[in-house]
């Protein structure tokens, strides 16, 4: 019988000796070049981390390749980052260049540090989930190919964090990203009332709807959606499989901007709607790639140093953001959920554009 509740391996057994010795006693760091960090301890000892990009959806052979590299240069010590990059941990400065060279030759991008675009946090999409309105890995790959330079170089005004979630559940918390790419449905779920009695609990389905669009008939065990109140979040489908919502023609992607998580300078902020809808256009989602690149370029050429996307927009104003990016403003940009009034312009201060 397998042991249960043993928890994960103790991280202490996973740390390279240089970390063990300097644990909690680091003094400062420097970014030696994009993707290469040096952390210096109070002891004077240095740890070098080389960060490489990853598609996150990786095969066991790919992991073994990473292991091979780590064994060759890092005594077998490595880590993954909170954005799913790979970090090779070295104590020997001389190994940096050979490692970087080998990584490049094997097609691993080295970068993601400082004022760059790091890996795109993303989710399952069509690879494994049941509620996606788009794929995850595909748009990420298509986009990273096009903004590759911003991963391997560090030439933006500040960090730009991009995330993608394939449905409104927002796994990965795209809601606080400089640029969020979000799969959305746009049509009302098609309730199959013949299945409802078997697979759905009526009260919890009703409760699942954020806008109260679902009415239930307890006697006949049926559910009805008020089309006018439904904003296609898909939450009812999560609790009731008889309410599928995917719709190949009308599902797609929305783009959100200006969120952040860190407390540096400004407080954490949610991302705000920039583009309500772009079509799903596999395999390379050109409309999405184009839209995101446009936003990055406008940001890069207008923001001041250290200014995150949201900080820049707050400074110049949303009217200016829409003018500069050429993105049309629509009634969909205006909040109409619970806290909507907090977003209304309750002042006479605004710019003409």
């Amino acid at each position, binding site marked *: 019988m397998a*042991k249960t509740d043993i928890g994960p391996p103790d*991280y202490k057994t996973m740390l390279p000796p240089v970390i063990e010795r300097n644990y909690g006693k680091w003094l400062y760091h420097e970014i030696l070049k994009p993707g290469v960090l040096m952390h210096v301890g109070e002891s004077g000892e240095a740890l070098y981390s080389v960060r490489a990009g990853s598609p996150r959806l990786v095969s066991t052979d790919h992991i073994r390749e990473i292991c091979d590299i780590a064994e060759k240069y890092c005594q077998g010590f490595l880590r993954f980052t*909170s954005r799913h990059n790979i970090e090779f941990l070295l104590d020997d400065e001389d190994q940096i260049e050979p490692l970087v060279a080998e990584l490049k030759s094997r097609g691993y991008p080295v970068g993601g540090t400082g004022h760059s675009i790091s890996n795109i946090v993303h989710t399952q999409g069509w690879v494994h989930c049941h509620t996606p309105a788009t794929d995850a890995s595909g748009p990420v790959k298509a986009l990273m190919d096009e903004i590759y330079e911003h991963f391997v170089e560090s030439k933006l005004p500040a960090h730009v964090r991009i995330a993608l979630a394939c449905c409104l559940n927002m796994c990965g918390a795209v809601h606080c990203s400089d640029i969020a790419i979000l799969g959305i449905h746009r049509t009302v779920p098609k309730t199959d009332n013949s299945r409802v009695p078997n697979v759905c609990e009526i009260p919890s389905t009703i409760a699942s709807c954020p806008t109260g669009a679902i009415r239930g008939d307890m006697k006949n065990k049926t559910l009805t959606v008020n089309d006018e109140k439904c904003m296609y979040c898909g939450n009812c489908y999560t609790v009731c499989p008889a309410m599928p919502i995917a719709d190949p023609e009308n599902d797609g992607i929305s783009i959100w901007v200006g969120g952040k998580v860190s407390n540096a300078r400004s407080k954490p902020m949610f991302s705000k709607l920039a583009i309500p809808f772009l079509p799903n256009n596999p395999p390379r989602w050109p409309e999405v790639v184009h839209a995101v690149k446009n936003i990055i370029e406008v940001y890069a050429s207008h923001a001041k140093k250290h200014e995150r996307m949201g900080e820049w927009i707050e400074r110049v104003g949303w009217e200016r953001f829409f003018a500069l990016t050429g993105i049309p403003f629509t009634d969909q940009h205006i909040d109409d959920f619970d806290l909507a009034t907090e977003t209304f312009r309750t002042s006479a201060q605004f710019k003409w554009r």
Partner: protein
Amino acid sequence: MERSDTPLLDELEKGQWPSFVKDMKEAARKNPMAKDLLKQLELSYKDKIGHWKHGGIVGVKGYGSGVIGRYSDRPDLFPHVQAFHTMRVNHPSGWFYKTETLRKLCDIWDKHGSGLTNMHGSTGDAILLGTTTEHLQPCFNDLSDAGFDLGGSGSALRTPSACVGPARCEWACVDSLDLCYHLTMAYQDQMHRPMFPYKFKIKISACANDCVAAIARSDLSIIGTWKDAIRINADEVRAYAENINIQKEVCDLCPTRCMEWDGNKLKIYDEDCTRCMHCINVMPKALRPGKETGASILVGGKAPIVKGALLSWVVVPFMKLEPPYDELKDLIERIQDWWDEFGKSRERLGELIQRLGMRVFLKAVGLPAVPQMVKAPRTNPYVFFWPEDLKKEEK
């Protein structure tokens, strides 16, 4: 040349960024599940729709969570992914690995699953992507033997996660890794046997840069901070002055404008500093967090479903955090007990507080109200009074 089965996905092998399609094909070469996954994904690319059915409940003995059940809606075409469940595996704090450990994981997964993984999932688990119902238990057994355990799913605690913290970062104000490991071990039961109203996530960032995005995606967010003054190395400040414009890049961007730079000396009015980290971030050699370190505890963070997304907010401005972390664990348990008692099904902690009010929450968990909990006091006059606040009525 042979016509490819996956013309659409093949397009995603091109380009400079590492391709997940290459990995899928790699796995597909030796694994029929991976092969059917690839083909089903191609169909999705063609149809612009997912081909997975609504998840079912599957698992391993003694656990109610850790596995996401998944079935193809075209088992006729893709029989090897008819069942294709994901296993969520607790990661070592900070995602540190020795290669030998990783290799063990790979071997187990080649034996039982598709050979495809996510390193890692958004919550932080090592995600083993796709196996059959029959393989779940044997796979778990092998994982357990290798020293691994499952993460959470459903209405249970999720694997806590932490920033790299003291292992590599000079700014760590708490031992995020030790705390993460400690909590993960302490709450194995809550993680594996769903008994909450809904999911519960804990994330720990050892400073306000919040490198695990704790504030945005955990019900309980622990963010390191300090009480005393920022440590200044005046010589290093002057050294930075040769490369950067300290007034513009540091002082002018300080959110509280509590720094003065006269071209030679940097003065920080620490009583006004809100420890945002910006100045330290820009001049890491010159500035360091203070020495009296601990963490702020925030609660309520979550994604939009159902009542809208929430960022966590401060409920304890400062707590010293040292093993065995009793004060913190007491608090977590009081919070979870209250949530457990009053939370409706699928109601996250933040939503419950939103529904019942902070005053009810604070009273129940025994925390004093302090101004640090709010951006600003209320603007509406709909103020409740506790009965004990009132004079006895005469009549």
